[in-house]
């Protein structure tokens, strides 16, 4: 039978040191993802270090400059309910509210949310062989309806399930990390990685790294921000496609806009190629907005073109049969 040892961290420096020394140790906060992964046998840590009692890591601070600092141990529900979060960055509150049921939101932490692992059915399967690094991607020619359309590799086509991550990528947030050599900030867009040939590594954290907080810088676009989630089911479901966007506008004309997509890649996908075309576009001109967004999907027209061409070829060939 699988068993693990549980101990409690009282100091971030000790927690970091223990994580570096012991490759079979995992941090645990509220465990809403980790316990599920253990039940699925997707990960089997020998030792768990409970970080819930580390001091000052659950605070939600509205910074005087208009930004926000969210401790990694803050609960999703508390952040979503915070009036300053809702006023300054509604996209964050909305992403959290659409992410989980009330029960989960009351348990799960912000740090744990951005650390959650993919929901790929093969990754979570009791059979561990598809998870073994180097085993290839079972979803590539299998159940992949909800998998990546950007940034995937032959080794993995899975998507990142976090709604919050899409919002934080759109807002250019920072992840504040304490590691073996001290504290550092990681750009949110650089935090998650694409699968390449090492899909088992979801993010750029190294052994000993402990997420202390998320910092959201002040920006003109924050207040005009929104999270849209499209799912097979209205509630309590992962995204097929989601959009986090922050817009600054004058008289319904975009001054600047920062869109990011979720549900389509191994990490939140920023539509950087659309940013300059969106500048100056009217919010009432759907065609202009569509063509600006299409700049981030340069070759997407081929999907429709290929299907129509295939139908026409079938009919032409069939007429000769």
């Amino acid at each position: 039978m699988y068993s693990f040892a549980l101990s409690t961290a009282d100091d971030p420096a000790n927690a970091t040191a223990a994580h570096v020394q012991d490759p079979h140790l995992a941090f645990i906060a509220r465990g809403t993802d980790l316990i599920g992964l253990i039940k699925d046998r997707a990960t089997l840590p020998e030792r768990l270090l409970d970080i819930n009692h580390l001091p000052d890591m659950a605070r939600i601070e509205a910074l005087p400059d208009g930004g926000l600092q969210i401790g990694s141990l803050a609960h999703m529900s508390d952040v979503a309910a915070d009036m300053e979060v809702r006023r300054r960055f509604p996209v964050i509150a909305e992403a959290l509210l659409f992410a989980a049921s009330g029960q989960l939101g009351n348990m799960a932490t912000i740090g744990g949310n951005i650390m959650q692992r993919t929901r790929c059915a093969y990754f979570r399967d009791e059979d561990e062989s598809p998870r073994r690094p180097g085993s290839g991607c079972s979803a590539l020619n299998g159940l992949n309806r909800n998998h990546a359309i950007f940034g995937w590799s032959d080794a993995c086509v899975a998507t990142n399930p976090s709604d919050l991550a899409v919002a934080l990528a759109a807002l250019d947030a920072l992840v504040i990390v304490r590691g073996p050599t001290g504290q550092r900030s990681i750009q949110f867009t650089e935090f998650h990685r694409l699968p390449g040939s090492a899909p088992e590594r979801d993010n750029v954290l190294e052994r000993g790294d402990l997420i202390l907080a998320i910092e959201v810088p002040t920006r003109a676009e924050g207040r005009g921000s929104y999270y849209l989630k499209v799912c097979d089911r209205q509630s309590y479901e992962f995204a097929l496609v989601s959009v986090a966007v922050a817009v600054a506008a004058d008289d319904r004309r975009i001054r600047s806009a920062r869109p990011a997509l979720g549900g389509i890649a191994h990490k939140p996908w920023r539509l950087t190629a659309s940013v300059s075309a969106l500048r100056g576009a009217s919010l009432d001109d759907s065609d202009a907005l569509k063509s600006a967004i299409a700049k981030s999907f340069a070759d997407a027209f081929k999907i429709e073109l290929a299907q129509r061409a295939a139908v026409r070829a079938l009919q032409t060939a069939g007429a000769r049969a």
Partner: protein
Amino acid sequence: MGFCTSGQIMSAVAVIEEAKAGWPSAAAEDVRKPFVLGDLSKIEIRERMSGNLCRCACYPNIVDAIAEAAERN
């Protein structure tokens, strides 16, 4: 019957408490606005209770009961 009831009641009590505390839900039209208990519509109740399954499908009565309890608050 009744297997889900304890969980439904626990969640229902929390739903009303959270609504009284001004917490929004995914059913909110605009999260920037404060939420008050009077905003706890049946759509709100359904969203806030989602994840609690009842295999007898007694959902309409559960939602009605929560709405009635919220009104008495």
